[in-house]
């Protein structure tokens, strides 16, 4: 077979090997291949090289398959959840305290402004500690740390919403 006809057919070999030629073009290529060992070798090479490429790709994929999910999304969600919990706890307590103060007035056995301020700070601190503990909750290596964090919140901020939530969590566990 002449080099010229090989050159003409070379542009069709990939599509022929992939089965993407029209029946007419496919027939032309098959006819050429019947008399040309060099082009037959290329077609075999096309099949073989793709098969081997797939082995390499698949091997890489198997190695990559067990990769952990990148942390950007989960970490961001957890941080937002923690901040929201802190903000919500402070907001609820401040609203309740101010309404109570306004309704009762300062002299009628209600808490003083200094007392309200202290409780707001306690609520915020306890909620922050709880949010941090919740970030670590579920990680086996941090079980001890989370439990001691829970105990600290209950012992030091017993009248806060965070402490109440911790008690519920502990009861749920037991």
């Amino acid at each position: 077979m002449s080099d010229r006809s090989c050159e003409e057919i070379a542009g069709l070999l990939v599509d022929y090997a992939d089965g993407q030629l029209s029946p007419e073009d496919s027939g032309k290529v098959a006819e050429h291949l019947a008399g040309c060992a060099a082009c037959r070798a290329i077609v075999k090479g096309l099949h073989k090289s793709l098969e081997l490429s797939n082995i390499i790709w698949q091997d890489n994929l198997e190695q990559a398959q067990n990769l952990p999910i990148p942390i950007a999304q989960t970490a961001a969600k957890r941080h937002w959840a923690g901040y929201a919990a802190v903000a919500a706890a402070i907001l609820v307590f401040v609203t309740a305290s101010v309404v109570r103060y306004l309704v009762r007035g300062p002299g009628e056995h209600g808490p003083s402004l200094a007392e309200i301020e202290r409780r707001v700070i306690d609520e915020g601190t306890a909620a922050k500690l709880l949010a941090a503990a919740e970030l670590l909750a579920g990680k086996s290596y941090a079980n001890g740390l989370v439990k001691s964090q829970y105990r600290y919140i209950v012992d030091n901020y017993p009248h806060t919403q965070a402490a109440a939530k911790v008690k519920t969590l502990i009861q749920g566990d037991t």
Partner: protein
Amino acid sequence: MGAVCVDEVSKDCAARAEQRTGHRASQSNLLGVFSAELGRLKRIAAGMGLSSADCEDVLQDVSVQALKRAAEFQSRADCLRWLTTVTVNRCLMEHRRQRTFRRRAPEILRRRSAAETHPKPIEEWAIAAEELEIVRETLRQLDGHLLAPMVLSYFCELDSRGIAEILNLNQSTVRGRLREARMILARRLTQRGVEP
């Protein structure tokens, strides 16, 4: 006058809230697509020859970029196209730095043969290793503009239209590059004297 002012302030607050909500929705959308299509992105990175450690780094970078650019995309198709393009470009960067296809053929074959019940005879194993090494070397040396369409087409099974959108090319260019890449691989295999 006071009522007008209050109305304007309310509208302003409502617009800001809407903007914030929209931002969050598109952000969760992009991250949702990232999470749902992680398998596909891993497949691209693996096909481009990245080791698992480099693959993890690349996907980490992509997820961070997704967080930064979250507000720019509305439809799922846009999100996916963008994520795929960024992943391909990031992998090409690793390919240019010659950090791809580093695992040599004997190692790949050893792992495969460990899973086979009937191991190959030694001569057959040697030929398979030689052929695989030629293809590995060729993929490693293949220019990025040929490797990317090759991986997207034959490993990720995208059609030439999808590849053209991701690589910002026209379809005939994609098909031309696919033919060129395939012929380079086939010729290298036949020229090196291994029985194809």
